[in-house]
């Protein structure tokens, strides 16, 4: 991680920008602002931010469009800020390349926590062993340990757990889960997904992690503290 991580806020509400700047600067971020989509795009080029906070309702461009343009050339983590809490908008944003979203009104603490999670994504851990709570997943051995004890999982449960642990803390849409675990033509599995997840949840009930359902969107592996 850089000495001072740079954050870019693209939002047209000046009050919100000021508040976010306060919160971020208190955490040691170097903050840049843009009040519309076009400026946001050019700021993203000049400032090379480590993370971008993007409001979906911008005066000139649709936030989704800004996101798509960003994704044409950069993999910089993007956190969506939105007042629209309809699930389809969130799913579209996530599938267009956003890393996470928070719905206004949001709590600053949560926002900062999400930012930390998505920033980590930039540098995936190169080790073949994933850790989350009391769970240890050894990619090379295809083995899962719960508190040191081997845990028996079906192949699908293993794939699910691997996906969640690789993206620990981050939201994964239902379609992302389906295409990763079942392959590109798995739309008809959607209706069973929940049942599989429920079974997996029961097996890792004591692992101090939770596969949290984000209704209508997807899942997120959350560490319980």
């Amino acid at each position, binding site marked *: 991680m850089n000495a001072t991580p740079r954050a870019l806020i693209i939002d047209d509400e000046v*009050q919100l920008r000021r508040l976010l700047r306060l919160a971020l600067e208190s955490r040691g971020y170097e903050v840049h602002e843009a009040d519309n989509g076009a400026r946001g795009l050019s700021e993203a080029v000049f400032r090379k931010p480590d993370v971008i906070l993007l409001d979906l*309702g911008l005066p000139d461009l649709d936030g989704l469009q800004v996101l798509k343009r960003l994704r044409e050339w950069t993999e910089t983590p993007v956190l969506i800020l939105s007042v629209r809490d309809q699930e389809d908008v969130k799913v579209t944003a996530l599938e267009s390349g956003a890393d996470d979203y928070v719905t206004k*009104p949001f*709590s*600053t603490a949560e926002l900062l926590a999400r930012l930390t999670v998505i920033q980590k994504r930039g540098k995936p851990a190169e080790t073949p062993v994933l850790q989350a709570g009391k769970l240890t997943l050894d990619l090379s051995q295809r083995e899962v340990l719960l508190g040191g004890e081997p845990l028996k999982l079906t192949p699908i449960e293993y794939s699910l757990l691997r996906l969640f642990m690789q993206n620990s803390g981050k939201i994964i849409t239902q379609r992302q889960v389906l295409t990763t675990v079942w392959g590109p033509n798995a739309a008809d599995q*959607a*209706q069973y997904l929940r*049942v599989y997840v429920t079974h997996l949840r029961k097996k890792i009930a004591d692992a101090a992690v939770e596969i*949290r*359902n984000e209704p209508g969107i997807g899942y997120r592996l959350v560490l319980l503290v």
Partner: protein
Amino acid sequence: MNNDHHSRPDPDALLADLLRTEADARSGRLFIFLGMCPGVGKTYAMLKAARQRLLEGVDLLAGVVETHGRRETAELLEGLPVQPLRTLDHRGHELHEFDIDAVLLRKPALVLMDELAHSNVPGSRHAKRYQDVLELISSGIDVYTTLNVQHIESQVDTVRQITGVTISETVPDSILDCAHDIELIDLSVEKLLGRMSAGKVYMGERAELAAASFFKEANLTALREMALRFTAEHVDRDLEDIRRARRVSTPWRTNARLLVGVGPSPYAESLIRWTRRAAMRQGCQWLVVWVEGSRPLAREDQERLARSLNLARKLGAEIVSVTGDNVGAALLQVAQERNITQIILGKPGPRMLFQTSMADEIIGNSGDIDVCLVRPVLANSRLARSYRKPARGEDAPGRFAEYAWAVGISLGGVALGYAVFAATGYVFIGLMFLLGIIFAAMRFGRGPVLLLATLSALSWDFFFIEPYFTLHINKLQDVIMFGMFFIVAICMGHLTTRIREREQAEIRRQRQTTALLRVTQSAALSAEPDDGLREALSTINELHRADTALFVRNSNSDRSLSATPHPAGTFVPSAKEWGVINWVYDHKQPAGRFTDTLPTSQATWFPLQTSTAVMGVLGIHLDEDAGLDFGARVSVEAYALQLALVLEKEQIVQAVNRAQLHHQSERLQRTLLDSVSHELKTPLTVIQASLEGMAAAQISSPYLEELNTASRRLQRVVNNLLQMTRIESTAVRPAQEWCLLGDVIQEAVSTSAIGDALARHPLSIAIPDDLPAVRLDSHLVAQAITNIVHNAAVYTPADTPIIIGASVHPGSRSGSVATLRITISDGGRGLNPGDEERVFEKFYRAQGSPAGGTGLGLSIARGLIRAQGGDITAGPRHDGAPGAEFIITLETETMAG
């Protein structure tokens, strides 16, 4: 290996078996008690069976039961619920008939219908009782009925041969095919005769039975054999069907296909019946082919042909109508195109020169196809006597004039001949006569032309060939010339007439095709659909000289028939017709005049049926004396199909337009919602973030606490209001997925969903472990549960328990659809009486409720559940404990884990 191939079950048979099982499940079942003749005890057996069913608790109703004054039968009928007969007034007579509407309304499980072959009294809905029975079955009612073997359509010929009695009341064989079970009531002839002499047998209403000594021992034995054989054939076929489907050593059916050629002769019916029997025996498909020649048929022949073809249709044949003057060639062509294995023809009688040649031609050119000549039997001897071989149907009124013209032309020819005879010689005059014949042939019918040819030849000889004024001819040369003249005249006349007739037939066909094309085009291409319909209907008016009426169903979503006729129609039916129209619409079958169903109606009504739906009903109202022949009926059905397609297209377009409009307004609403949420939520975010910032900066003040509480409350209110708006704008679309209910409930009561409202209440979730997985929108259901539980937590005293339970109840429909019931009970004071419904009203807040609610939580919950087709009700707890209970009911698919 061959065996392997043969033991493979026929997929079609399997499908048919499935369809039959399915049909059995959907519609009612027909049980037939079949006997050889009256008096064997069918009614008695039926009543006994019915009593048994009554004991089993079946809701049965005696529709019509004829006891014929027999004591044993009447005793059996006692105690059975009987449907009173309907009284009809027919020309001053009071007639009684089975009341089908009353029975359909009452909808019992089983109806007893004695005497299946009975003809209903005039004014009833159907001409025949079996049609009543079919309607009962199709509306899901089981029927017990009785039938004598001589009333079965295909057995009529045989019965007539045996007993000499012509049976006029018949039932089509196809109704026996839809019978679930046929039970033969058998009695030995001896016993029957014994019962007769004891006076226990009712002889039948018609004197003919008794008069023809129907009940002779020989007759009875033959009838008994027929009944036994008939039942055996049916049992055999059932067995075969089962075998084929179940792959029990499959006796493979041949791919036979029978074709029978019929014409307007009264023998056709007998041929059709014969072929049907043969087809049944072989279990194969059969075609009835009618070759339409260029000459129009006489009215009487048309009607007879239509009757025969209707019979064929009733018996389940496929009817093919082709055109051509060479009947044999046309039949062979159909036979080759359709891979026919056997052609059935009437055996030509000695008199029928024409048919002999046709049969010979077919036999000569049939190649691989078997040809079977059948001796036709006339079902009705009276008909046979009156029948002449059809000549041609020419329009009678013009004919006398044509003969007069023929005489006139020959007289004129003689006069003109005299004037020029001296100058030209008799050969010229001969040619002149020929010219006259050709002209006449272009205009007149065959008869006048033949007369003219004969008259011309004779007068030529009489007046102009030596010796004059005798028919005698001296010179051999002249004799030959006269002979040649005669032959040429006849041939010319014949050929010219034939060409002309062909031409006329062509024109007739052309007119029908053009009319159909016009109907199609005008209906499909016109910009205003109504104009198109008007033009299409006026085309039908012109072609059939009939008035038309059109009733269209209301729309794609409202499938009921519009009560006002379409303005394009020219005929306004009386209120009485409305019943027929609705019947046609419901049953997808033509009815009214010229049909067997409600034939006393003013008009004939055809359903406008596409492959997916019935779009409406087309009525054809003909003049009093006009008839609707087979050809006309076929063409009206073709128009009906065209109109139906046009109407369907129109309604689809309307539906698409509506959907588009709806979509647009939805988008508008969504934009509005978005900007409202933006405006409300942005300041809330600022407030919230500022408060958190202050907390982080360790600023503490009692004002801050108040501010915090108020801000949270404001957030809740805003969220609720926005959600309510979304539910009301029907923007909530459920997305179903399989899930375990326990999981959904856990989610609903998690802290992230419900906040700290549950901190003060012990919560118990009582869900059976074996609850199957259910298919629902888990998000919406969870949210509804959250709202109810939150409501319970807020409105009940601290430390009172909240209990969530769930159960699945198998649905009434078959399959995996079940009713899911989720109950949420609390330990509070319970609802105020009268509040059970009102708590779901928007902004309603019960008396004495704590401050801080919006009164929206429960109405949102109900909205969310109703969006999925379920409901929420509230009431006192079912276990009697104090407190309120909310019950969510949802129809859902289930999947046992």
